[in-house]
Structure formats: C-alpha cells, structure tokens
C-alpha cells in the first residue's frame, strides 16, 4: 500500500487487498478530513464499498475504470448534502439541480442533440455557480458511462462537489451497471427528494 502526499492530494493504493481492507483504509484516511483523495482498487466489490463509504461520509465520488483498475476520486462536498444517507447539513439552496431525461438536447435531430449536449456540459463548467446536482434518468444515464462523450466534464463536475445522481433502474434496463464511470447509483426516491427541495430544478 502506498500513501503518498502530493501537495494536498492523498492517493491510497488498495489494490490486492481483500474486503474490508479498502474500506478500513479509506475510513482511516478520511478521518484526516482531506479536501480530496484518490483510492485505487482492483475489484468490483471494493469499488462499490469504498464508493458507498465515501458517499456516506459526505464525499462526492467519481470513478474511472482503466484495465480493471478502478480509480475513485473523492471530493468533500461543498454543499455537504449526503443524499445516500438522507442527512442534510448546510445546503446551498440557491443553486439549481438539473434533471436530464435523455442523452441528447432538444428534438429535431439526434446528431445535433448530441453536439448540443457536449456543448451544454462544457458551458456548465464555466458557470460561476455550479448546479447542486445533476440527475440522470432514462437514456440520460448513457451520459455517465465509460464511453460517454460528456464523461470528462461530468467527472469534473463531480470532483467539484456536484452530486451526479444516476438512476439505478435505468442502468439496469439498459444493462449499463458495470459501465458506470461517474456519480452515484440512486433510486427514484432520492431523485424525488432532490427535486422537492428548495431551489430550482431545470429539466432538459
């Protein structure tokens, strides 16, 4: 295991470790309250478990998967809203949430819709105030998988504390569960909680 401090970035190598070692090591490291941290694991159970632990500790999680090595990037949430555990701390009620019901923007041309979606995410990153959450349902979940054209901006949003909530039922329907590369798997209940909180929701 390596635990190098790169400026303020902590990287935890949990490859080759059996459950629950990756969670235990992540727990110990998070006790230092780093603003951000990366955890490396090499199996699905460890990836799921570390992601769950981090989310329950108030960290946004984005996951990259390369050749079977999962890189979990954890970022302390600015808004400190823990959707998975249903705990609410200081919430930024001004920032809107965005609900995406498909992976293209607008109707008329699918090709144009995909181009618009890319441009949408790039522009979103340049806003002075980021949304508090991006919720993906139906074909919108395609935006959060490994070969998504907007994966990088979505991962960056997640890194910056935006909750990326991906509908689990939809992932199952499209058989995409294993290809999820950013955000947390959630259910309709959690999405509804987010929709009915104070602050605007933008539906695209």
């Amino acid at each position, binding site marked *: 295991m390596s635990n190098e401090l790169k400026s303020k970035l902590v990287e935890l190598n949990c490859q080759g470790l059996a459950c*629950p070692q990756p*969670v235990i090591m992540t727990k110990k490291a998070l006790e230092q309250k780093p603003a951000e941290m990366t955890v490396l694991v090499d199996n699905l*159970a460890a990836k799921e478990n570390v992601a*769950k632990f981090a989310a*329950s500790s108030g960290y946004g999680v984005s996951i990259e998967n390369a050749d079977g090595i999962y890189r979990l990037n954890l970022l302390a949430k600015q808004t400190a809203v823990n959707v998975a555990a249903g705990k609410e701390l200081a919430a930024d009620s001004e920032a809107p949430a965005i609900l995406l019901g498909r992976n293209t923007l607008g109707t008329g041309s699918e090709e144009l819709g995909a181009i618009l979606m890319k441009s949408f995410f790039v522009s979103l990153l340049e806003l002075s105030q980021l949304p508090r959450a991006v919720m993906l349902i139906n074909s919108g979940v395609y935006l959060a998988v490994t070969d998504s054209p907007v994966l990088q901006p979505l991962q960056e949003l997640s890194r910056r504390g935006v909750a990326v909530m991906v509908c*689990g039922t939809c992932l199952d329907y499209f058989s995409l569960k294993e290809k999820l590369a950013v955000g947390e798997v959630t*259910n309709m209940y959690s999405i509804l909680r987010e929709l009915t909180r104070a602050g605007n929701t933008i539906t695209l």
Partner: protein
Amino acid sequence: MYLLNDETALIQTLDFFTPIVDDPYLFGQIAAANSLSDVYAMGGKPLTAMNIVTFPVCKLSAEVLLAILSGGQQKIAEAGAVMVGGHTIDDDEPKYGLSVTGVAPPAKILTNAGARPGDVLILTKAVGTGVLYTALRAELFPQGVAAAAQSMAQLNRYAAEVMAHFPVHACTDITGFGLLGHAYEMASASEVDLEIDSRAIPLLPEAAEAAEVGLIPAGAYANREYLKSVEFHSAVPVNLQDLLFDPQTSGGLLISLPGCEASGFLQQARAAGVLVAACIGSVTGKGTGKIHVK
C-alpha cells in the same frame, strides 16, 4: 435423503467452516447450529452428529479446541441429538462443523419445491450476518456483531417444531446465496413467482448502517450478479437491496404456507421463542422464479 422404510426417511447433511467470531465456544455453537439447520429445513429431527475438525496444533492451544468442541456439544445436546464421534486433522487454520444424521416420516419431508400461489412467505431469523461479519473485521458496529453471533447460534429447531403443526408447502434455510438467492431457488423449483416486501424483512441491529457504509462482503455482489430474475421497486434503498443479497451463515428458515395459516403460525412461533419470525411476502402465481421486491 434416503428412504429406509415406509415410516422413516434418513437425512444426511454436513457443513463446516472457518471461525466467524473471536470466541471459540461461540464459534463452536454457531458452526453446530449451522450444520444442524438443514435437517430442520427438511422437516426432520437430528439423531446423531459427528465432529469435523481441522486445527493448527502448533499455533493454538488445546483449550481453544476444547472450547470449540464444547460449544458444538452444547448445540447438539440442545437439538436432542447425540455426538457419536468425529475426526480432527492438523491444518493452518481452524475449521469446525458437523456431519448430521436425522430422520423424518417420508410424508412429512419438506423440500424447497412445492410453494403454491396464494402462499405467504415467512422468515424466522433476521438478516445481515455477512455484513456484520465484515463489520467485525473492520472493528465496527460491535452491538450489531454481538447480535449477529447470538442469532447465528440459535437452532432452527423451535421454528421447525412449530412447522410440524401446519400444512407447510415448502421450506429452505437461508445461507450463502442470501435471502434472495434461496428464495429464488424455492420459487424456481416450485415454478412460481414471488413478491417480497423489503420493509417487512427483519434486519439484525446495525446491519442497515453497516451496509450503508460499504461493509458488504464480496459474496453479496456475486449473489446480485448471479440473480437476474430479481426486480426492485425504485424506492428500495441500495443498502437494503445489498442486505437481501447478503450471504448468511446459519440463517433462518424461509417457509411457504397457505396465507390463512400465517397468523396462527406466527403466534405459535413467537410463543416458542422465535420472536423475530415475520411475513415477508407471498407467492403471486405460477411462474419461473421471478421475484419482485417492493
């Protein structure tokens, strides 16, 4: 299972495993209860048991071995059975369990096939031993861990004795494939579909919290991966879903019996000390083993 004559069928079963708790006596009790469980799930009574032991004689003291065997003996005696011998070999890590012989009248033998539309499903022990074993290894949730150990050490005898008074259609015990895995086996063997109410499932203390923070054994993910015929209502939280796939050790009985018999069964079960017994769902109709969890 072997038909000896018209009145008696012989049941033969065995199981053994490595320690899942730190206390050797408790480990012996749990391993024995686990090994005896299959006989109860089939509607039988244990008669004799033999110890299966591996033990690192150079690493652990004889007192530890004695404690394990004493725990096992306590459960065998509680089951009304007799320990008739056993075998021990040297090995790097300790393992313990029993080979059990039981009997049942052939007409009363229960299998996991036979559940019928209109049946209600009853579960007799709380779920979450896999998650809490992971918590033990992480040195977290000690209360939950202690409760799990007590639950695992309980014999399914008392639930089985209540079963004998009711027209049970099918029964199985809940072990490594998790509640949903064994429910699927029952549904598929019986050619029915099931509905399970996730909110009705008895959970061990702190199991939900432990699952929420990711203390989930790899086996739960393997069970989830394998079971394609389970569908969750979108409101079932992920930690509860994980608990339904959580591999159990020495779990309770999953019983399918006519809906009209359910409340009578629960009343008698609770009177017999099976306080956790609960209705967790129903057989919705003929089918192929699909399970809808709400």
